[in-house]
């Protein structure tokens, strides 16, 4: 391969990686908030599916993409409210409730989709790449970084904003403390339960947004199980990223790279590896990171534990 072709390949790869990382970025940054407050939401997969479906349904009805995104966020948060009620108020086991919500999310979206949409087979308009004068026309760099839609660009904003909120506001300081020493927060006069609800809602809202991106910014259709494990991968991203929002952004990009690589290598005729192996790449990397980064501190010490008031 000569240099020009490989550079083009690289530019396309990076552009695709960012696009494919977008749902992971939203979901994992959201989960960082949730886990920093001590709530482990393994129901991300189901939440993302609900977001994807709500976004699709709203956009199909109104033709309005921003409205679709808002519907995705709202759907995710509604699901989050159910999760928060059972795990924070009722103090049910977070893993059990999360698993139940995954099943519910899959079943519910499949049911609603089959009932109302599958026969229509109708697609929707999706968010289009914005053309930024001059930047988008740069050779290679333009293809890699400046031919995305607004939702993809917004990931940078969300990551920066998340870091600012978490590390530079009173809300963020309290949220981080809730996951480490909830009683200290209680004594300081803030509500542990309130903060945990807030953290879960931020988390599931962002997961819903990540899901909605799949139908509104990526494919123009809802498909059953469209998230294909991204919710679980986002959980791994959080661990790899050491519970940092900026870390989650870059680790998601890395996983996006695996997705993109697998897609582009499949298209390359010269590669003889069976395509199933390539498809499995992101999932294999998930397991590898989880094993490699297992138990190396940094996890909020009260992760997964309900708070008992005195």
């Amino acid at each position, binding site marked *: 391969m000569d240099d020009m072709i490989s550079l083009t390949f690289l530019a396309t790869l990076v552009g695709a990686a960012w696009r494919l990382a977008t749902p992971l970025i939203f979901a994992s940054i959201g989960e960082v908030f949730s886990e920093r407050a001590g709530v482990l939401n393994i129901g991300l997969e189901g939440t993302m599916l609900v977001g994807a479906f709500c976004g699709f349904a709203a956009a199909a009805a109104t033709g309005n993409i921003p409205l679709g995104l808002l519907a995705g966020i709202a759907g995710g948060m509604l699901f989050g409210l159910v999760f928060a009620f059972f795990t924070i108020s009722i103090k049910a086991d977070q893993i059990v409730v999360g698993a139940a919500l995954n099943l519910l999310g899959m079943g519910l979206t499949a049911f609603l989709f089959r009932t109302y949409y599958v026969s229509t087979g109708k697609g929707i308009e999706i968010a289009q790449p914005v053309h930024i004068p001059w930047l988008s026309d740069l050779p290679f760099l333009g293809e890699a970084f400046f031919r995305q839609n607004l939702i993809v660009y917004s990931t940078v904003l969300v990551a920066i904003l998340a870091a600012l909120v978490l590390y530079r506001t*009173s809300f963020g*300081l309290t949220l*981080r*403390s809730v996951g*480490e020493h909830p009683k200290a927060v209680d004594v300081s006069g*803030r509500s542990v339960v309130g903060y945990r609800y807030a953290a879960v809602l931020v988390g599931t809202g962002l997961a819903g947004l990540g899901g909605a991106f799949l139908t509104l910014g990526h494919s123009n259709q809802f498909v059953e199980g469209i998230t294909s494990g991204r919710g679980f991968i986002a959980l791994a991203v959080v661990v790899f990223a050491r519970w940092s929002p900026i870390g989650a952004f870059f680790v998601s990009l890395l996983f996006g790279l695996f997705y993109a690589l697998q897609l582009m290598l499949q298209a390359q005729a010269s590669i003889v590896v069976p395509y199933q192996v390539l498809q499995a790449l992101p999932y294999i990397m998930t397991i590898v990171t989880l094993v490699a980064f297992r138990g190396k501190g940094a996890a909020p010490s009260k992760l997964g534990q309900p708070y008992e008031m005195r």
Partner: protein
Amino acid sequence: MSVKPFLRIDNIRKRFGPIVASDGVSLEIEEGEIHSLLGENGAGKSVLMSMICGMVRPDEGDIVYKGQSVRFASPRDAIRQRIGMVHQHFMLVPNLTVAENYILGQGSALSVISDMTSVHRKIRALSERYALDVRPDAIVEDLSVGEQQRVEILKVLFHGIDLLILDEPTAVLTPQETDRLLSLMGDLVKDGKTVVFISHKLDEVMRVSNRISVMRDGRVVNTVRVGETNARELARMMVGRDVRMELPRSPKPPGRIVLSVENLTCRAETGLPAVRGVSLDVRAGEIVGIAGVSGNGQTELSLALSGLLPVDAGRVILNGNDITGLDPAEINARRFSHIPEDRHKHGIVLPLSLSENTILQRYDRKPFATGGMLNRRVIGEHTRDLIKRFRVKSRDENQPIAALSGGNQQKLVVARELARDPDFILVNQLARGIDIGAMEFVMEEMLRQRDSGRAILLISTELEELFAICDRILVMFHGEILGELPPDRTRLDELGLLMAGNKDEPALAG
């Protein structure tokens, strides 16, 4: 004397289910005094103070503060009224800096943290004024227990208080740190603040207080001025009978060597060397004490002996068998009992019941289990028997051990470890958080164990504890045994010198 009381607690009641924690308690605190609160474990001291600082709401009764009846919905309300408390268990978020801990919960939730420099300045100023030596940018988990305590006290001062409540602040401090804390309390009073001080150590209480109140069974039974009483009388008020401060000890030649440690070397969890070639023997029928300022390798020594920390070099021989490197369960099974320093970490499982905690090491064995099934009846009887013998204050044996007061948890650990019929008993801080009545009992029990031929190694930072029951005292400094002394109070100076690392004193022959 006083015009109007600064704080008046009037007939307060508080129950937790069937347990009455405050049974119509009344108490008056005067402005500018140091008022100590004494009482047996579970007498209701912590609960009463938690109600004053807004952590727990009383069922009935009145709190009148600065002439006004107050009812706090949360600790924040209490802080607004300038009441602050340093709790028995610290309320600091370990992975935040000192300054971040101080601003936690302050200001509006949506505010941006901007002016950290002025917060740091304020902390430094307060730290200097009271010689607290607190750095605002230190991460809390990097600090020693004593330092964290000062951080807690400064936190309360940072928020601005008139009334400071200290719940057993000295239980985890070294003697030097305790001296420092007591003089700080004096400084605070000079600045016009009022201090309520809870402690089980009568000498401290006698040293700093203006007045002392004694609690029993959820009520204040007596309040006295410090000049009008003595330690013996206070002890009697607390326990309701005479407490012997000196325990009779029968001279008895020790028997065969039960535990022998040869050149033991190990590192702390941080990887730094902690125990450097310690050798010692403990014989049947003797209590060997290890004195030392905390942090000189005692923690690691006891963890290594009980199999909780890997041994780098040297051997541990129990009853003639090498037990070096065995896991804790195997060591336990060889008639080795361990009363650990940190009961929450190594002694008990908080959410489990008293019954379950008493059979932790033996749940799979007769008589507690047959054919893989637990014998609930036998377990229950066994636990009830221990509760009665060791006077563990509890509702019943099926209650989670987390609901017990700290001292009562400790009593159950001691009871369990002695009931296992050990040959060797390793104790690290026997009396941590237990009241003097219980202490007398536990110490007598230790002496009984000694007289029946058991070997006991008692690690302690409390010299009183060591003098009261040990046959000989070893001094540990920087991971080494520096010398040995008989438990003779007249040689306290020598002991102090050894504890400070002064090895070449002539009188080591002891």
